[in-house]
């Protein structure tokens, strides 16, 4: 006769001690049972399916009472082998893969990948100014939508539900703009080697300017709700402490590094995409804690709005300028037009390649099926993503596909600091500390 084990609430003996399985329902029984054991030390497995772990992050916590003595992260639950897959696609197709890594900041992944590819091709200076301005515009909009999720879910995980509603309301506005420009709300594959996929639609900058005005007003909602709020302050001030020495040795970048007072922002220190021509400030705090990182993200929103306005001016000034490199051996032959069945290649282009010029047809076919060749070598290109330094290390063997591509993901790197931030603190503070790192598991696991 076999003994029956209740899968929802049970305890069993193992060589490491008694193991309790906890799911929903009444915990009273469990609490009494654990109370009966003499053990002070409990190992708790938190995640990977847990609403407060930002996706499929698994935390293994060792507790003495309510104090955390050791934290270990378990990752890899969202590993999709993007870096391997990309070795089997041509350089342009690669964009559709990298955009799916860190799904909250797709445009940064695309830009890092494209900057590296352009560096390999040696066409960095040939990318049209209008294309760079559009990239900056899209990245800064993306920074807002990403910070909105960081702030909204961070607050939600600490028990405040209204900030999440406000944050996602603003994020919707940004996603609407993305949809208007690229046709997609996420994973757009909009930025391509050599420029961007297509020009902005009619009236786009006007719409963005209106949205910026509305967002500037609406951002105040969350600021008034949280800044100075006594519960919020108690949950964030002095929590998740990590100072400058800790940050540098752990390779931490982004808002966590800036919360130590170091104004390190690649947009200022190592500008790309013409960031040196925009007027904005690097936001820092010197508290080294969760509250400081929250303040940085709040204030970076305003800086992003400033950059967006300047980018709109720049784009308007460059009306009619190209958005893709002039070299037809690299520029994707996408003369897009809106037809009766949606967006597709323009009929004029089809007419030209099918009806008048055999060479154009061959060129189109070769570029789309075979793709362009990239001279052999390796490069590293980094951009300042909402989470820190996002670096693309790409190796080419001179062929039509990347030989090796590796992303230095800020989420992956920064998540290592969980132990340094949380060991010695209370269990409840882990949530705030992890939320302040803002890891996106799609980026961590790739």
């Amino acid at each position, binding site marked *: 006769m076999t003994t029956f084990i209740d899968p929802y609430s049970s305890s069993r003996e193992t060589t490491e001690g008694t193991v309790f399985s906890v799911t929903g329902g009444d915990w009273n029984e469990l609490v009494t049972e654990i109370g009966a054991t003499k053990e002070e030390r409990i190992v708790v497995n938190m995640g990977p399916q847990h609403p407060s772990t930002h996706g499929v992050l698994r935390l293994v916590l060792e507790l003495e009472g309510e104090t955390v003595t050791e934290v270990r992260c378990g990752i890899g639950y969202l590993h999709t082998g993007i*870096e391997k897959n990309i070795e089997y696609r041509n350089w342009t197709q690669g964009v559709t893969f990298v955009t799916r890594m860190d799904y909250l900041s797709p445009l940064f992944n695309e830009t890092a990948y494209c900057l590296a590819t352009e560096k390999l091709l040696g066409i960095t200076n040939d990318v049209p100014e209008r294309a760079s301005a559009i990239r900056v515009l899209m990245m800064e909009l993306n920074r807002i939508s990403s910070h909105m999720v960081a702030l909204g879910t961070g607050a939600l995980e600490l028990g405040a539900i209204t900030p999440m509603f406000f944050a996602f309301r603003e994020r919707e506005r940004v996603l609407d703009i993305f949809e208007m420009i690229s046709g997609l709300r996420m994973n757009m594959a909009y930025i391509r080697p050599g420029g961007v996929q297509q020009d902005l639609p009619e009236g786009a900058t006007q719409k963005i300017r209106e949205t910026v005005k509305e967002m500037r007003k609406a951002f105040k909602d969350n600021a008034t709700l949280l800044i100075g709020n006594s519960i919020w302050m108690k949950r964030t001030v002095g929590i998740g402490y990590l100072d400058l020495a800790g940050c*540098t040795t752990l390779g931490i970048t982004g808002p966590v590094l800036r919360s130590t007072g170091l104004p390190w922002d690649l947009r200022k220190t190592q500008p790309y995409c013409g960031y040196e021509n925009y007027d904005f400030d690097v936001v820092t705090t010197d508290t080294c804690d969760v509250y400081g990182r929250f303040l940085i993200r709040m204030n970076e929103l305003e800086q992003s709005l400033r950059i967006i306005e300047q980018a709109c001016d720049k784009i308007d000034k460059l009306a009619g300028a190209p958005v893709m490199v002039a070299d037809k051996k690299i520029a994707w032959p996408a003369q897009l037009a809106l037809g009766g069945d949606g967006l597709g290649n323009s009929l004029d282009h089809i007419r030209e390649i099918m009806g008048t010029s055999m060479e154009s047809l061959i060129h189109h076919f070769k570029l789309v099926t075979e793709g362009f060749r990239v001279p052999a070598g390796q490069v590293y290109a980094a951009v300042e993503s909402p989470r820190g*330094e996002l670096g693309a290390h790409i190796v*080419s063997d*001179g062929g039509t596909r990347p030989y*090796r591509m590796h992303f230095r993901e800020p989420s992956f790197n920064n998540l290592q600091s969980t132990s340094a931030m949380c060991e010695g603190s209370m269990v409840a503070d882990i949530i705030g500390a992890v939320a302040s790192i803002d890891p996106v598991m799609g980026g961590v696991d790739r």
Partner: protein
Amino acid sequence: MFGAHGTGDTSGYGGLVRTPAATGSSERPYGSYFDDVADDLERAYPGFSDAIERVVVDRGELTLHVKREKLVEVSKILRDSLKFEMCMGVSGIHYPEQSGRELHAVYPLLSITNNRRIRLEVSVPEVDAHIPSVVEVWAGNNWHERETFDMFGIIFDGHPGLTRILMPDDWQGHPQRKDYALGGIPVEYKGATIPAPDDRRSYR
């Protein structure tokens, strides 16, 4: 830009495998701040000529090819004397054709003090894929080295806990090696069968 080389087969089925050419070392002057970095390192580290196999400047980036025995020594000097406070991880590359140095590990370094970037590269044979760990120099390389071990099978000696990080613990093989197939199954769509990406015709 376009066109087949060698056999002239343009069908995509020819399997025109290209072998990546190893770039030679660069001559002085390297340009930009690279001469300063090389000078400073030579001054601070007397074993420079012994430890650094090659210096390559390509596309505005400096790569120092370091012997693996000297990696930790050079790293410490770079961190303490040349102020490369941050190591942005480690990225593996597998070149099956380069016999004797099939596996490469690439370390991008960042100096916040001087606002500079350089890169270290270490190459080891596949049969003896051991590289000393730099976790004692830059603690943040812990997970990066675990990932490179997971994906390429490079063993970082002295790492505090070198285990798989992205793949399951009991996984066989190292997926990012070139002899590890991508896998996948053919997909049927409207009566036609589309082969897995591995088996599709492709221009290499």
